């Protein structure tokens, strides 16, 4: 079955990619399977300088989900381009760089840095990381700020830009429209919902950062709703994510309005999550009378 999808800057052999931050730079999971099987790889967030991230504990388990507050730990964009991108480029897959920052200038710096390499095919502009205190969060919840950073990054970069939206907003459609207007080539949604878990013996937050981002199957209904709502009003493509762990989940995201999907938390439970889903996808689509991934996209209620 034909699983191919074409998105701005990306021709994906299948619509499945690991989500940013849940797959490092691919090295660890390349010990489990051949990364060439993936539609694309979204790398861990890149910032201008090396970041050590938040104190530990950084994760906590919740019902059908988990909280994380890694705090964008990464070696900095230059070392990512020097050390990580070349290793990933050896695989027959697309590479998407996740761009983070605490200021407009940092976003622009990181985005333009990726102009240096031919091996990165698109940017995912992370305006929604809830674990950065310096201001990252405002970009993701204020439509005007989101517009500004999107325009600035579009101007600085010669790659297609997928803006990653935060679900922690009253009106997701407004955010999506704002970045579409600002020239985004696509959307990526959703990032994590801000949550908290307490450590009962102390009554204090279990995660050192106090709050963390909620991911996993628990948030899937919220992701589906937001993607569905946005798809009615916005026409740029959507990379969907939030709780995907089976091929049925992928179908639901495609039907809701996504054009490709990312798998995050599920990798932790099953290191083969992405390839298991890729393997199961043809039969799943067939069971529901679809002939290809593009067929699902073409046949959903509202056409893109």
């Amino acid at each position: 079955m034909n699983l191919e999808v074409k998105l701005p800057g990306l021709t994906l052999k299948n619509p499945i990619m690991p989500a940013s931050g849940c797959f490092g730079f691919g090295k660890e999971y390349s010990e489990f399977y051949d990364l060439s099987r993936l539609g694309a790889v979204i790398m861990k967030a890149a910032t201008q300088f090396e970041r050590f991230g938040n104190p530990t504990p950084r994760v906590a388990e919740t019902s059908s989900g988990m909280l994380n507050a890694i705090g964008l730990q990464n070696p900095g964009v230059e070392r990512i381009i020097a050390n990580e991108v070349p290793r990933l480029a050896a695989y027959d897959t697309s590479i998407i760089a996740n761009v983070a920052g605490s200021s407009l200038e940092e976003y622009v710096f990181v985005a333009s840095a990726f102009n240096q390499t031919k091996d990165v095919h698109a940017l995912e502009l992370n305006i929604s990381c809830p674990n950065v205190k310096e201001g990252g969060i405002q970009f993701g919840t204020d439509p005007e700020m989101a517009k500004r950073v999107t325009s600035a990054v579009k101007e600085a970069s010669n790659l297609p830009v997928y803006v990653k939206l935060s679900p922690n907003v009253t009106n997701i459609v407004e955010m999506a429209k704002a970045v579409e207007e600002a020239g985004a080539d696509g959307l990526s949604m959703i990032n994590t919902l801000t949550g908290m878990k307490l450590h009962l013996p102390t009554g204090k937050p279990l995660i050192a950062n106090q709050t963390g981002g909620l991911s996993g199957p628990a948030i899937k209904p919220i992701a589906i709703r937001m993607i569905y709502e946005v798809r009615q009003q916005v026409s740029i493509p959507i990379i969907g994510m939030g709780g995907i762990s089976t091929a049925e989940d992928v179908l639901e995201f495609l039907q809701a309005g996504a054009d490709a999907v990312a798998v995050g938390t599920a990798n932790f439970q099953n290191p083969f999550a992405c390839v298991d889903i890729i393997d199961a996808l043809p039969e799943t689509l067939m069971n529901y009378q679809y002939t290809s991934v593009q067929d699902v996209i073409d046949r959903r209620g509202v056409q893109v």
Partner: protein
Amino acid sequence: MMKKRHEMEVIAVDTIAKETIEMTLYQPEISQQTVPGQFLHLLVPGFTLRRPISIAKVNSEEGTVTILFKVVGGGTKALAAYQPGMTVDALGPNGNGFQVDDVQEGERILLVGGGIGVPPIYHLAKRLSEKNVELVAVLGFQSKDYVFYEEAFQKIAETYVVTNDGSYGHQGFVTHVFSEVGAFDQYFSCGPLPMLRAVTTELKDAAGKVSLEERMGCGVGACMACVLPTVDNSYKKICSDGPVFSAQEVIL
């Protein structure tokens, strides 16, 4: 060779001390490859994250791997209810264990285990006992009801048992008997963080290796959940660089 997910068959499940379960699993590959200090990353149905549990013993002839765990929350509670014949989905052996290549013949080695940190120390003790070295083990437990593996240690090491409340063996913390154990060449330790802090402080001039714990996401080095600052102003990942580190290298 690519890493795998293993379906390990449960061979035996026993409660060997208060809230402490010993579980033997069948998996020849793992039983042959494991270095003491490495862990299994176990999937418990119904829970999002896998549970890291150290390997306590292997029997490479029978192809079995033994783990010991304390029932502390939902995951270990569910695991404790497993019956022989059922299978457990495991990744492993994960991480870097205790390197014993630099242990020389004739050395006197101090082993310090606390609570559920005792099992990997036992695995190490067994491995070291194959070398011509002298072993001293200090094992700390909350109280008498929690003590396990004392006899097994006695067979291969001069063994001191310490309980917090003095209900068995010496009273106090493992560090309280350090004055009695005499000189040693290197030490290896695993246990709760406060214990490891006390041990490394007390033994700050000695060569030693410690095994650490942290809450994990992936357990394979990809998610950065389990990092630990190092003295060179950098960091290490407990799940993949560790869980065993040189006591001098990390900041506890």
